């Protein structure tokens, strides 16, 4: 019954969303308010119906209704109940439904929050959002239906279908439970409970700015209203996408067992591409808000960001390139490619059309190469360059080599380590300079004066690193550049606090809090920059100074690596976990400077019921802020287990990557915090604006 409810809800949602598109557009063109409102209500109804479908699938998973083929494919009776919840996005059909659900929730949020304030944009924005929803609902209904059920045909053949085939019978759940597959082992990790939803929220969130941008082009309201309507949504999407990427890194670090967190895997990169584009957009949009410039460019960026989101989804789910994420592959590749291509083409044509009408003229021109807007343009250029390099390495080279050279070029870490560090260094350098430049115009001497204190602090930091024994030129240069960005962010906050202490006679903590509350966007931005700096410190440390060694040890024997000693104490083979996995666990003691500091238990998990991917290497780690002592169980002597081979990594400062991520998230939330409405004599009133227009209109 639950499958029928889910299927019917999805079918009705598809009809409601199509109706919503037609009525929103037609009502707006004919200026018929009732029709437009009907379209809006249909969009809200779509949200309710998709919610019912999602709940239905979740209930089927929890109640172990194995006659639903999706439930059978991602769960089994031995699976803990926690993973029954996360199994909702454990495979293609469920994750598509979950994706659609997140999308309709965002859509409903945008409709409810923006309908009154941005009435002119909303009908078109709703139509665009619903158009994307229609596509995903169609995928769910016709290609990847999560409500397909198992049927036994009269000739004994077993098929999965949403509707009952003639003369078919349903097998019992108990019988199906015996063969149920269970969740992919890679997904049986706490990180998987959070990483995919965060990533989906990030991806899908960019639909709202995109829809507002398209609505602005369609309606002709090309003022900054679409930016104001979508800024918060863009920030939310960026926050979740950042969180998704960081959690993805953490998951890879814990589960994939190779000692790192970013392998430049094509699917990792596919999620990184919209982040790069979205970050460029978040910076660039400020120029339009402040100076009425880069209108075409911002529109292009918002299109490109969402286009990259759809491309990333296509790349992940189609098997376009080989990746560790290949478990999500299916037959939806072509429709997704077609949708991505059509959507991007229509958006770009619409943009070009409006531009050719002269409706995207900038209000000002660039006056000065050191002005903040010029430096933001440079920032955008660097993000675009990074986008090009990452896109080429992940997709451009493999696809074009196969198409035109009849060979298969796969570019790996080697390529990315040769091409991206320069661009990252330039971005960090710019992060250190741009916040100190002023809008409109800044002289070199003024900018130089602002930089004196941060530069002194940076030099002191570099000297400190050198005094600590750092002698690698690359590391010294990298840390100097990253430190400058960090000191500028902290110095700007410090200057603000000192100014408030002087003018308002506040204590430092009150001054800091009031400063942030007064301009959350600015200081949230500095906090985000500081988070990125902390991540940078972690990445540089863990990349340039990683130490690794592999040894085979006998029980009681030790190996030395750096100033650590690792002693192999015990081996516990064949431990059976609650979820049915069989674990072979080694126990080792980590000794530092002669003192035992931790016990680590690296293990190899074996999933007997899973045929595709049935072993996992789980690291044992001793984490401190200074480094991670990360141990992998590579192999062992089958019978006695007396000898086992361990691979040990010392990853310096790796934990700063996660802490930096946390600071970045806090900073973004701070920037999202609504600025208090201040009514002062300097506020611009409509009456004040009109005389100002007289000269130009």
């Amino acid at each position: 019954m639950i499958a029928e409810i889910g299927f019917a809800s999805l079918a009705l949602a598809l009809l409601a969303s199509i109706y919503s598109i037609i009525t929103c557009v037609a009502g707006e063109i004919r200026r018929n308010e009732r029709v437009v409102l009907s379209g809006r209500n249909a969009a809200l109804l779509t949200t309710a119906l998709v919610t019912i479908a999602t709940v239905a699938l979740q209930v089927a998973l929890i109640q172990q209704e194995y006659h639903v083929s999706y439930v059978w494919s991602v769960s089994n009776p031995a699976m803990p109940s926690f993973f029954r919840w996360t199994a909702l996005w454990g495979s293609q059909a469920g994750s598509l439904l979950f994706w659609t659900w997140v999308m309709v929730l965002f859509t409903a949020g945008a409709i409810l929050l923006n309908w009154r304030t941005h009435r002119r944009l909303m009908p078109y924005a709703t139509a665009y959002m619903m158009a994307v929803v229609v596509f995903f609902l169609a995928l769910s209904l016709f290609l990847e239906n999560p409500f397909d059920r198992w049927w036994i045909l009269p000739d004994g053949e077993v098929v999965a279908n949403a509707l009952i085939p003639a003369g078919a019978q349903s097998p019992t759940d108990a019988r199906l439970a015996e063969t149920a597959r269970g969740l992919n082992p890679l997904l049986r990790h706490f990180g998987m409970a959070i990483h995919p939803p965060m990533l989906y929220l990030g991806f899908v969130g960019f639909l709202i700015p995109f829809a507002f941008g398209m609505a602005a082009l369609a309606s002709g309201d090309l003022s900054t209203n679409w930016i104001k309507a979508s800024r918060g949504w863009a920030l939310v999407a960026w926050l979740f996408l950042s969180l998704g990427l960081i959690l993805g890194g953490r998951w890879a670090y814990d589960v994939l067992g190779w000692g790192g967190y970013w392998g430049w895997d094509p699917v990792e990169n596919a999620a990184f591409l919209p982040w790069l584009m979205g970050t460029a957009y978040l910076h660039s949009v400020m120029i339009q808000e402040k100076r009425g410039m880069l209108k075409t460019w911002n529109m292009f960026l918002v299109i490109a960001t969402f286009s990259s989101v759809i491309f990333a989804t296509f790349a992940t789910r189609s098997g376009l390139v080989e990746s560790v994420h290949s478990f999500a592959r299916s037959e939806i590749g072509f429709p997704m490619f077609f949708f991505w291509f059509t959507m991007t083409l229509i958006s770009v044509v619409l943009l070009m059309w409006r531009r050719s009408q002269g409706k995207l003229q900038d209000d000002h021109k660039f006056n000065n190469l050191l002005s903040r807007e010029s430096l933001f343009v440079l920032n955008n250029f660097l993000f675009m360059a990074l986008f090009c390099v990452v896109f080429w390495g992940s997709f451009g080279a493999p696809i074009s080599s196969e198409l035109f050279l009849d060979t298969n070029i796969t570019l790996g870490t080697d390529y990315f380590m040769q091409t991206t560090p320069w661009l990252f260094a330039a971005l960090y350098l710019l992060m250190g300079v741009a916040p100190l430049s002023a809008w409109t115009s800044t002289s070199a001497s003024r900018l130089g004066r602002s930089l004196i204190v941060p530069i002194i602090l940076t030099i002191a930091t570099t000297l400190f690193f050198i005094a600590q024994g750092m002698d690698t030129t690359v590391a010294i240069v990298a840390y100097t550049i990253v430190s400058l960005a960090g000191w500028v962010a902290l110095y700007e906050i410090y200057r603000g606090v000192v100014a408030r202490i002087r003018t308002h006679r506040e204590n430092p903590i009150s001054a800091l809090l009031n400063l942030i509350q007064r301009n959350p966007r600015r200081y949230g931005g500095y906090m985000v920059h500081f988070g990125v700096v902390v991540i940078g410190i972690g990445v540089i440390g863990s990349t340039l100074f990683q130490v690794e060694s592999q040894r085979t040890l006998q029980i009681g024997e030790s190996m030395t690596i750096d100033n650590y000693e690792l002693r192999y104490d015990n081996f516990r083979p064949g431990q059976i976990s609650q979820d049915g996995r069989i674990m072979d666990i080694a126990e080792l003691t980590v000794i530092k400077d002669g003192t035992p500091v931790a016990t680590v238990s690296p293990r190899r998990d074996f999933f007997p019921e899973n045929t595709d991917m049935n072993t996992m290497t789980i690291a044992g780690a001793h984490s401190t802020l200074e480094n991670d002592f990360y141990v992998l169980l590579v192999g062992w002597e089958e019978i006695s287990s007396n000898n086992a081979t361990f691979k040990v990594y010392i990853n310096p400062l790796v934990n700063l990557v996660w802490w930096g991520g946390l600071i970045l998230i806090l900073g973004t939330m701070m920037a999202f915090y609504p600025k208090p409405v201040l009514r002062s004599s300097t506020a611009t009133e409509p009456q004040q604006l009109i005389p100002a227009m007289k000269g130009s209109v």
Partner: protein
Amino acid sequence: MAAQLHPVKLFVLIIVVLLVPSVVAVAQTNDGDGVITDDEVNDIAQKLYCPVCENIPLDACGTAACDDWRYEIRIQLEAGMTEAQIIDDFVYRFGDRVVGTPQSTAPRLLSLVTPWIAIALGLVISFQFWRNRRDTDDSIAADDAPNTNISAYRDLLENDVSG
């Protein structure tokens, strides 16, 4: 002197002379320098990708096939092959996909240079675009008085229109 050497002693001498290089060789392989360690194998394996798995470095891949390939690297190192020779051998057998960037000159150049060409092209187009627009803006500026509030005014106007 040689004529006085007993045949048995001569035989022992010959055996000793023949065995010395072998003993020295065995001693060398066990003195730590000659033995191929896991780290030496991994140094090379991490520069290669598993020929059958997907984007997984050979040193991190847990499949039995990769175990065999790592063993092969060990044998090749023991046979005196250099890192470059071993990588070349893998590329010869499995193609460029086993390395992070292609080894052959043309595909390598194509891989490394193409994005920079695209970036440079983008830069040139942007500069050209900016220069053209500056000229246009200058001519518009000659006609229009400078105004800083156009966008803000438009926002208000659009909001009024939308009610």
